[in-house]
């Protein structure tokens, strides 16, 4: 692999096709001038979802796509003086040309081979890659090394596919050495009827807090599944989606207990990366509620978000660092801000009592205190900070954090490196019990996340 000159200016276009979406990320770097950014665009392919395999989704589509992308990014990408052949403009300067174009297609993408063929016949200048398990393993391997995580989960939550990848350092007793273990746990729904009908399952109803009739619920859910939306404030849909993703995560956990056991409670540096369509709709707090309850997580770990698929796009590039062959990117452009997840062990008798009090302090922020009552699922947004910020949490009334029953917990947020944007303290006593009916769930969710809308 050839190395890139570190300080030369560079621009690279990476596109991911996944779950009927096109994510484009144009990365520009000028490390000499400490200038680095990624321009991003998302194109929903759902309006063409039934036509991705026919003449509508052809060369003309890609011509139009790249021409339109130029306007969106205000960047000359296409060589326009060659009328007969489509070629990309070589990189000259900021806003003019790219040093390479890569398209990665998810192996679960519908009409995968048709899309692959249409790109291949469109241009040979595009580096075509497949997003498969092998890619995920090598990317997560690199990311975990780079970030120093010994146990890393990548949770991809789409409507039809739920996948949990795990890369974990384990001690091999025989060879007396530390090795990395990769696992994948997955649920895949074959068609939309299975997904829509799944809400009739009694287990699904156990997680539900919305009190619509079954008929109304099916119509709502059916319309949502068949016509994807990218934003919703409808409390009924958000609740059904939360219940749906919780039961999917829980089914994955139940079927793959050995693969997913002991995350966050072994004392290893642990993190979870959340991605997919569902978290984009649900928002961070409810997505975490679904993940924590579904996978029965406890202890403490970091949470990163890959909602715009930047990590999927440039994860390997970032992990390769200066050995990268496409572009050299740093953490702040590729990775999201971090949420610290703390799930203490709490006695069930501590209703409305303080189980955690903490503070944060830095050069630019005065000491600010915060606390969590049981049984809150408390998502605390940290103020924006430009200096290193120390965050300390003290656990009270007999509560503690596994594995060492710690009553004191602290970490440091470092801007431009490992910057935390929020803390989530799940102060609900275990086991988490949903049901027995939607009304009880409504009351519970109000107490946990102050979800009056549900």
């Amino acid at each position: 692999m050839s190395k890139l000159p570190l300080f030369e200016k560079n621009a690279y276009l990476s596109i991911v096709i996944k779950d009927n979406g096109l994510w484009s990320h144009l990365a520009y770097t000028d490390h000499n001038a400490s200038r680095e950014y990624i321009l991003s665009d998302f194109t929903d392919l759902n309006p063409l979802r039934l036509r991705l395999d026919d003449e509508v989704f052809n060369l003309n589509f890609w011509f139009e796509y790249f021409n339109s992308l130029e306007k969106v990014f205000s960047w000359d990408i296409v060589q326009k003086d060659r009328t007969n052949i489509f070629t990309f403009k070589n990189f000259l300067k900021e806003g003019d040309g790219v040093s390479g174009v890569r398209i990665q297609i998810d192996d679960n993408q519908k009409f995968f081979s048709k899309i692959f063929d249409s790109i291949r016949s469109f241009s040979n200048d595009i580096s075509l890659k497949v997003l498969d398990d092998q890619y995920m393993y090598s990317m997560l391997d690199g990311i975990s090394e780079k970030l120093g995580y010994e146990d890393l989960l990548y949770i991809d939550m789409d409507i039809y596919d739920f996948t949990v990848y795990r890369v974990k350092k384990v001690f091999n007793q025989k060879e007396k050495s530390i090795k990395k273990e990769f696992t994948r746990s997955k649920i895949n729904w074959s068609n939309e009827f299975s997904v829509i009908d799944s809400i009739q399952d009694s287990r699904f109803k156990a997680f539900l807090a919305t009190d619509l009739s079954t008929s109304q619920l099916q119509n709502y859910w059916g319309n949502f599944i068949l016509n994807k939306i990218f934003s919703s404030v409808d409390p009924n849909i958000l609740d059904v989606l939360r219940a749906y993703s919780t039961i999917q995560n829980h089914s994955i956990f139940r079927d793959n207990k050995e693969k997913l056991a002991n995350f966050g409670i072994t004392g290893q540096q642990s993190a979870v990366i959340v991605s997919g369509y569902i978290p984009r709709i649900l928002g961070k707090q409810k997505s975490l509620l679904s993940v924590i309850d579904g996978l029965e997580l406890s202890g403490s770990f970091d949470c990163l978000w890959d909602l715009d698929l930047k990590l999927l796009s440039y994860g390997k590039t970032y992990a390769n660092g200066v050995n990268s062959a496409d572009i050299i990117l740093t953490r702040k452009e590729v990775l999201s801000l971090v949420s610290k997840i703390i799930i203490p062990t709490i006695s069930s008798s501590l209703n409305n009592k303080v189980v955690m009090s903490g503070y944060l302090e830095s050069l630019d922020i005065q000491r600010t205190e915060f606390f969590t009552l049981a049984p809150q699922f408390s998502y605390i947004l940290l103020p924006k900070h430009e200096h290193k910020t120390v965050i300390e949490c003290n656990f009270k009334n007999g509560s503690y954090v596994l594995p060492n029953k710690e009553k004191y917990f602290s970490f440091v947020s470092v801007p431009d490196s490992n910057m935390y944007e929020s803390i989530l303290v799940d102060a609900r006593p275990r086991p988490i019990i949903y049901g027995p009916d939607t009304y009880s769930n409504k009351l519970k969710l109000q107490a946990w996340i102050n979800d009056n809308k549900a």
Partner: protein
Amino acid sequence: MIIKHKVLEKYNEYRFSIPYKLGDRVLVEPDGKIKSGTTLIECKSSNRKHSFFIPEQIACSLKEVSETLNCIDGEFVKKGETLAQKVTAGGLMVKKLVAPSAGIVDLTRIESGYIDLLGEESVSNIVSNFSGIVEGSSLIDGLMIRSSAVALDLVSLSDLFDIKENTREKKIVGEFVSLSEGKDLRLHSTEESYQDKIVFVGKYLHIDLLHDLFQKGASFVLTYSMNYEDFRRQGLPVGIVGGFGEIHSSSKLLSNISAMNGKLAVVDYSESQIFFVQDVLDNLKTNNIFLTNLNGSTVKSLLLSNYGMVGQIQSSDEEGYISVEWENGSSSMVDIGGVEFITF
């Protein structure tokens, strides 16, 4: 970037075939040109004297239908003979379907639960109302034609996943019939027969109308919306254009679909689309795939509060919100992620 959903997509080189039976006469030659008015096939068919939906007649499920039959395809039965029967209550009760008159048993639609009694044979012609080229003909493949067509996406097909994998290529070909402008809610149809027709019922399909249409011989029913529970339970071939439940339906969209009345239509299960064979009209010329200007664009709401309603964007802001004037005269500010951009 935003892709516009073309409600009616144009196809210049659409290939399809019209099935025909032994005894029918193909009146066009391979490579021959077809014009509007060309007679394509002379069909010999018997009229359906009676049609029975067996699950309704003897209270059995659709899966049990084949076990209840007492007759075979093509058999001549006399008045009073048993066509199907179901034994219940441990053999104490027998529910029977008897022939109300003599006729020939037709089990062509038995998978949909229907048994037909045929009467006299008559001759009818399939006449083209489009132009195209004949690519060939055979009893297996039917009369193969290349023509232009416009396609409408079906958000769902009721029996798509019930049919076997090797018949996923299933296509239903027939004359497209729209019940009036499709705006009224109907419980019964007006015509005496919809034999082998693809019927568009309009904004909402009631289960009574569905059974009425299949009773009268319809081969496929298209609707803008329907209750999901009915859709999944009924087991007949139904296509949905808009969505489930009693949702808004755009009058412009309904009249565009109704305007296809009388055209030859092909329901393509593998594509989940219905193709209307026609000479492509000027107003269906290809537009740009991507949206160039938000203001003035036509959108369809995907938000549950006014799902299916069509409107025009009045203004937009940088936060991703758009102000839309809906077709019912109301205006609202919505998130751009909650609408679909469409062109008719």
